[in-house]
């Protein structure tokens, strides 16, 4: 697939940046166009793989944003994007849309810019183009608090209604000890980039090594066209190429899989992809469609294994709509299985966020209701005897 990618807000921009980094490192060519949009000038300086002229600062003239972000306020994020929609539209003039198959908009749903501005951008893209627009959204963890949960719950509705498919990523499922704020979400972003790029880049190497089982962009798009929320599973194993023998010796995964027969190895990889951390935890059986892509040296992909893996996933997802195919990568030193579970409806984490959001909204409304009264009562004495100076 060939993509135009747009990162909105800090988290979205970082993911796009990592996607480009990953595709460059693995010789893929997925992101034909990259663009990052942000309300904070400092954050816009962070991406390393996005050219200067593909970074758009919005809200510089907005009296509350001024190029300094929106303070986690989704309403301002949306307002700013709406006000500067012409600038946003203009930057798409450079995008030769006939060269891409789809557009991907990535955003963190907990922050103000991502949750507020991204749906506005998506709406505009849907108006402008016939190509599908996919969303990639990072859901805030429970510990990020009530306000981000509220932003996310509200933004999720806009996202899912407006995009052709929404791939969710749950920060909580990927949270780990020992990371410092310097590393921030780097590790998570890399994991996510690996998954999304491995999935969507399949079928873009049209001219070389096209096997009869090669996955086509249209297969992926067909799986995604059902809409809703999707989750991605991923597992990889080192492959023994003579050059990389020394390196891949360090791969634990490989060691455990060495003795397996090729077919069992393939099936095991898929099981692991689905049962290990999905981008958003979900009931696999609730998926409407599913797709498996094997990315790696064609010689490593056993036909028998692919078939048994597909059968297994059909049972797990309780759907016959399971596609399986290859993304041949001759020079790759890993074999990866990536599983797309499209339109999963059983996602406990989203329910939790919604509950947290409802509580947060109640708290916020209660505070707003008494705010002026409480300030007034604090600053006036009991009998209101004290007068202001001016």
């Amino acid at each position, binding site marked *: 697939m060939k993509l135009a990618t747009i990162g909105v807000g800090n988290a979205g921009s970082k993911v796009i940046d990592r996607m480009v980094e990953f595709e460059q490192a693995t010789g893929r060519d997925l992101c034909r166009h990259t663009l990052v949009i942000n309300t904070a000038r400092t954050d816009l300086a962070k991406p390393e793989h996005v050219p200067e002229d593909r970074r758009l600062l919005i809200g510089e003239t907005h009296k509350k944003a001024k190029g300094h972000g*929106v303070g986690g306020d989704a309403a301002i994020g949306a307002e700013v994007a709406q006000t500067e929609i012409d600038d946003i539209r203009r930057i798409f003039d450079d995008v030769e849309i006939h060269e891409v198959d789809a557009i991907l908009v990535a955003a963190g749903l907990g922050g103000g810019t991502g949750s507020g501005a991204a749906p506005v951008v998506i709406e505009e893209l849907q108006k402008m183009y016939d190509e599908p627009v996919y969303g990639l959204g990072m859901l805030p963890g429970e510990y990020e608090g009530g306000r981000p949960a509220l932003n996310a719950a509200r933004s999720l509705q806009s996202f899912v209604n407006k995009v052709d498919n929404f791939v969710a990523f749950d920060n909580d499922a990927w949270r780990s000890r020992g*990371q410092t704020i310097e590393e921030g979400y780097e590790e998570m972003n890399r994991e996510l980039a690996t998954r999304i790029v491995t999935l969507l880049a399949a079928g873009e190497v049209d001219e070389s090594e096209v096997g009869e089982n090669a996955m086509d962009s249209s297969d992926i798009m067909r799986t995604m066209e059902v809409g809703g929320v999707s989750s991605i599973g991923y597992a990889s194993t080192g492959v023994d190429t003579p050059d990389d023998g020394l390196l891949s010796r360090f791969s634990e995964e490989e060691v455990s899989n060495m003795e397996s027969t090729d077919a069992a190895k393939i099936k095991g990889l898929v099981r692991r992809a689905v049962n290990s951390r999905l981008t958003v935890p979900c009931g696999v059986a609730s998926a409407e469609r599913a797709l498996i892509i094997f990315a790696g040296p064609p010689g490593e992909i056993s036909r028998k294994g692919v078939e048994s893996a597909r059968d297994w996933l059909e049972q797990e997802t309780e759907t016959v709509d399971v596609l399986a195919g290859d993304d041949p990568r001759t020079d790759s030193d890993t074999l990866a299985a990536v599983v797309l579970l499209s339109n999963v409806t059983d996602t406990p984490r989203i329910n939790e966020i919604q509950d947290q959001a409802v509580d947060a909204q109640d708290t916020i409304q209660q505070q707003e209701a008494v705010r002026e009264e409480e300030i007034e009562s604090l600053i006036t004495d009991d009998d209101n005897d004290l007068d*202001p100076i001016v």
Partner: protein
Amino acid sequence: MKLSLFGVGDAGTRLVDKLLRAEVETGRNFTDGNVLAFNTAAEAFGETDALPEERQILIGDTHSAVNQYVEPADDSPDTDTASATDRDRSPGVAGDPELGAEVADDELPEIRRALDLVDDTEVDAAMIVAGLGGGTGCGVGSVLLAELKSIYEIPVYVLGALPAADESDERAHTAARAIRTCVPLADAVLPVDNEAWARSTQPLTEQYDEINEMVATRMLSLFAAGESEPATVSEMRIDPADVMRTLAVGGLSSVGHATIEVDTSDEGLFARLMQLLGLAEETPDTQTDAATIKRLVRSALNSKLTLPCDIESTDRVLVILSGPPSAISRKGFETGRYLLEEETGTVEVLAGDEPLPNAGEITATVLFSNVTDVSRVDKLQKRAVAYQRGQNDETAVVDTATSTDGATTISADERATDDDSDQPFEFHEPEAQHENGDTSGDTANTADNNVAGEPMATDDSAAETPADADTDLEGDDANTAAATSSDEHE
């Protein structure tokens, strides 16, 4: 974020000077030289180090009531060394906020000319810094606040010192009125409670420097976060919009602060290596430990706040962790943030960091915005009301005795006379009045006296209107102002 600072009065001038010194010391360039100080007496201007002379604006020196220097004739226990601007003897407006406001009104052209020296388009917000118990701080500060609000689009904050218990009742009265004045006008007011920070063993004047140092540390950690050069990129850097959104709800705000040392030296690395090799006995106590960061946030939460208050009454919270980003656990950062949400009961908790790669410590600064349960303010108001009632009773007696009604041009002379005669009353009156107020709070006389007393002091003010109408109007104004400001900045 970038702030312009406006010191008003002695205390304000000294504190601005301290903030500027801290700016230099910490390398956080947050004012870009956008500073001014206004005073009605040149005294405090002589004490400044970092505040450029051309930024020190003396106003009111030609006003007839100003600089009527009164010798400290009778010493009352109130007028100790602590009250540097005690009205009876201090130069300037002699502690009279009405006079301060009048002077500022008269000198608005001069003030506006000075304001041209400050570029409001280069800063994110403006901050008035004043002692709220002082005649200049409160009076001039209030007029300046109204002026800045009318000409600026950026938020205007007030950093104001509240008088300690051993300062005069008059100062308490002035400060209570200053709060009443500033909160509806300003986008946020950050009071500093001298009572909480003063040590009773020392005269307050000798502690100003220490208290100002404390305030400067907190204000820079909060407002100047991320302004040090060269700026380091950080994933969760605090943006000016975060601070402004937190303060946008208005009201009174309070700041907590705590610091821990970190090992960023080779020694730390060595210790870690020893642990890795199993050569060190102690549990892995690296600063990246999530629990350490959570503990730090808890210490800041429990620290002595700039304005002691019930943090559960806060509306919005902001926490900034300043320190080497490689030493701050992200999980600790998140759990620390969540702790604040749990402890304060608000869901509006923003968190960010200020990356200081070479710092030897991690600092947690917590802003509690719009705290509404502040016993200190209630106490201040009670004291102020008692004082005001005492004053009014006194005025009423004087009125009936000498029939000096319609005295529209009461000058400082007369006020000084009043003050002198008031002094003895200040000590037993509050108690008596308090009782009086409790037993017969609905007595119309008391209220009338208060209203009648006010115009005497504020001859040109609108206080002549009936108390109820006036009050309603003020209330409406306050609501509108606050509503507008929250619209603008939310």
